[in-house]
């Protein structure tokens, strides 16, 4: 039996929850068809999360590509299908990638080793400078912090996930929630997740509340790491500071919980629990255009 999982028309970190809700009751070894035929748009989170989803299945899932020519062409230019082809049985017309896209700062890229992080950072720097200073009207200093942020969130996979994941970076106008240009980093993996990672942390106080939400709070808010080394945990703290300085948003989903550092322009909740389970960690960083009123 094949269970059809419908991909919503607009796929981002919020609507991906609809995908996971459909997936929750389906046994891991049961065949699924991820039906994206009616999907018209996907954020970098949506694209990387779809690849991650395939990694969580015991049976190779099927994938119906978007029917919209523009959508499927854009997904091809992000290299989504290059990797989806390895993870899914692809159905539908999938074009070959032709040329680049100015909205794509970093195509969907696998991250497994430290060298991958080097590669990602080197590739992003020049484009990031142009996007951040020109399109987002941020201080040039924000460019370096952006590359550092990208590096640290990618390292989260290398250091903690226990298996490879995906990163993508795009710039676009976020009409629905913000009405401004944003640049967005998405890093998704299907690894062990924050709770499992922190369960081996030295000196962890075992209390009644130990779940995915508590693990995310410990790692993101208090900088707890599974390593005894006191220098650990600075990466995510740095990402938090960067988001705070540039009015950005950081959200991390792991297991059944999702934590967010919510800027003034957003109405997200700081901690959401009892979500549909999904392995690993899914990180999103959104940096918005600076508005004239701020200057």
């Amino acid at each position: 039996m094949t269970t059809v999982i419908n991909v919503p028309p607009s796929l981002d970190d919020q609507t991906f929850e609809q995908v996971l809700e459909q997936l929750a009751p389906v046994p891991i070894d049961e065949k699924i068809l991820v039906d994206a035929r009616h999907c018209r748009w996907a954020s970098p989170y949506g694209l990387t999360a779809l690849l991650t989803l395939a990694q969580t299945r015991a049976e190779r899932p099927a994938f119906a590509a978007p029917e919209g020519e523009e959508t499927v062409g854009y997904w091809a230019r992000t290299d989504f299908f290059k990797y989806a082809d390895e993870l899914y049985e692809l159905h539908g017309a999938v074009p070959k990638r032709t040329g680049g896209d100015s909205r794509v700062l970093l195509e969907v890229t696998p991250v497994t080793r430290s060298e991958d992080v080097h590669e990602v950072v080197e590739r992003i720097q020049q484009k990031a400078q142009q996007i951040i200073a020109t399109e987002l009207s941020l201080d040039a200093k924000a460019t370096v912090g952006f590359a550092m942020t990208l590096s640290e969130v990618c390292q989260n996979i290398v250091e903690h996930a226990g298996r490879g994941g995906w990163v993508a970076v795009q710039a676009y106008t976020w009409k629905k929630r913000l009405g401004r240009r944003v640049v967005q980093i998405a890093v998704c993996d299907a690894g062990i997740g924050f709770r499992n990672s922190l369960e081996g942390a030295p000196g962890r106080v075992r209390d009644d509340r130990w779940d995915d939400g508590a693990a995310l709070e410990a790692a993101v808010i208090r900088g707890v790491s599974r390593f005894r080394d006191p220098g650990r945990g600075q990466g995510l703290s740095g990402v938090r500071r960067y988001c705070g300085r540039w009015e950005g948003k950081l959200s991390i989903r792991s297991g059944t919980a999702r934590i967010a550092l919510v800027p003034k322009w957003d109405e997200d909740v700081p901690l959401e629990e009892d979500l549909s389970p999904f392995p690993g960690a899914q990180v999103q960083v959104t940096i918005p255009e600076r508005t004239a009123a701020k200057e």
Partner: protein
Amino acid sequence: MNHIDLGTVLRQTVSANLYSNLVTRPTGAAVRNQIELLMREAHERTLTVLDFSHVSMMDFSCADEVIAKLLLRYCAANPPHEAYFLFRGMTDDHWEAIETVLERHGLALAIEQEDGVHVVGVLSERERRAWEAVKRHGRAVAADLAGEMGETERDARSTLDALWRRRLVMRLNEQYVALGGERG
């Protein structure tokens, strides 16, 4: 005085030799090991210039591995040898990560800029006054510096010894010497 170009060390350390960013913990650990290897050939007391001029950017993890762990090792009670560091070529692109790890570990370091050598990081007011006094003199004994520091000779020596243990000034017998050359 040793001079270590971190850009060269980075390219010798990571598999692809085109990278110019100090990122990731494994890279940081490998770069630190290479620095220590180069220092092993040095004498009992060394001043090493760590030159960032050819490093584009450094992330927090790498700063922790390269800078914090190096300083912690050589400022510890039993360091491999008496080593001092002077950091050159640092820009704003490096500074955020460095400042963060210095604060995290309560460390300080000497940086060389166009207008001379400065000390940055976590220092008490007494330590900062003492460091400035040594810098002004280039080389002096505690008795000569006590007045400027506003301390008794005994207290001045105690503060200067603390700076020496942190490897922010050199100590040659009874004399304290500024990093980066004596005045005049």
